[in-house]
């Protein structure tokens, strides 16, 4: 029987080298079993948006809005309160799910350019509806050096506050917010589903915060 040939099966889905859409879901007789995903067409069908780019009517909070405060768990026994970062810029990266390939790329990229964010003293925070145990495993696997917050219970409450919850799939949209040191949203962006937004927009937003600061001091 084929099933008898399974020597080892890794329940821990390991992301194969992590840079594109492939999950190693197990090992059968020493051969890795991979689950392929199309990073670009992933869930594109469920992503019909209205003109404002949102799927629940309100749309993402716009620049100039005070960033709603929240407190979410980053690990099973640690909470992160947004207000603690007052005094430095914060980048909120809402993403649909841990382990999903496009997110992997996105967070791997942000992880790689943390030094660039650090130049602006900016704190990067990832948020999805996954639970803390899932986040912990994911962050360890990908060696992520920034917190992932669990918008888990009530599910998606923070994403809804920011206008970036996708009711049709029960996940956060792929949305970015840059919040200044005073807690005001200065830039927001919702990416089409399946398209990784990259980091150029974030860096431009951080740069313009810096320029405003320079002007204020001039």
């Amino acid at each position, binding site marked *: 029987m084929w099933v008898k040939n399974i020597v080892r099966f890794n329940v821990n889905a390991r992301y194969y080298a992590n*840079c594109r859409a492939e999950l190693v879901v197990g090992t059968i007789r020493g051969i890795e079993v991979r689950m392929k995903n199309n990073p670009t067409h992933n869930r594109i069908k469920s992503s019909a948006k209205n003109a404002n780019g949102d799927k629940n009517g309100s749309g993402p909070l716009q620049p100039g809005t005070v960033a709603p405060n929240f407190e979410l768990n980053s690990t099973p026994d640690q909470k992160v309160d947004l207000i603690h970062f007052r005094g430095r810029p914060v980048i909120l990266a809402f993403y649909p799910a841990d382990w999903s390939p*496009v997110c992997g790329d996105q967070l791997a990229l942000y*992880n790689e350019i943390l030094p660039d964010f650090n130049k602006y003293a900016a704190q990067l925070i990832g948020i999805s509806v996954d639970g803390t145990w899932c986040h912990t495993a994911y962050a360890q696997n990908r060696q992520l050096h920034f917190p992932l917050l669990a918008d888990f219970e009530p599910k998606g409450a923070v994403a809804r506050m920011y206008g970036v919850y996708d009711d049709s799939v029960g996940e956060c949209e792929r949305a970015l917010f840059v919040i200044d040191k005073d807690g005001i949203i200065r830039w927001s962006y919702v990416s089409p589903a399946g398209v990784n*937004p990259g980091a150029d927009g974030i*860096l431009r937003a951080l740069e313009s915060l810096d320029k405003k600061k320079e002007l204020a001091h001039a």
Partner: protein
Amino acid sequence: MPNESESPTLSMPVSDRRDHIQGPATAAVTLVEYGDYQCPYCGEAYGVLKKLMPKLGDSARLVFRNFPLTQIHPHAEHAAEAAEAANAQGKFWKMHDILYERQTALEDEDLVSYAGEIGLDVARFQAELFERKFIDRIREDFQSGVRSGVNGTPTFFINGRRHDGPFDLQTLSEAVMMAMNSGQEARPHKHHRPQA
């Protein structure tokens, strides 16, 4: 908010002096790849480009820029440095090809043995590799990618605009053909320079 229907564009123009280019400057289409030598998807893309580029002949050129994701690919940056060290001896593409063909063996001793295989001055190669002579250039490539909206590896730019679709042979061919056909519409791309 930025227009979501438009993909980002290349922020650092292609330079004949600086970039690694295969194909003529007169080509109608310039395909820029930001790649990582340890990334298996870049490995797949390498195979696709080996089939695609000869078919396009003189109408397309390929540019390779480094985008090593060092946090997840511990050998990627050194491999990129090896390719740059080979470039210093005029053999960038030979090293580039061998790195993608043997992606699973990118330890330092592998890199040195490839240098010997492609006929480099191994002592010079080793010295330049270990003094990290080309690291600034690699970081410059990387930063230009970040600023251009590179969002994973590989990321392609076709005539300066990020290609957001898959990169199998058919999709990439179609995207290149489309750029070729729309070339006459004189949409100036940042990296298209007037020919002298």
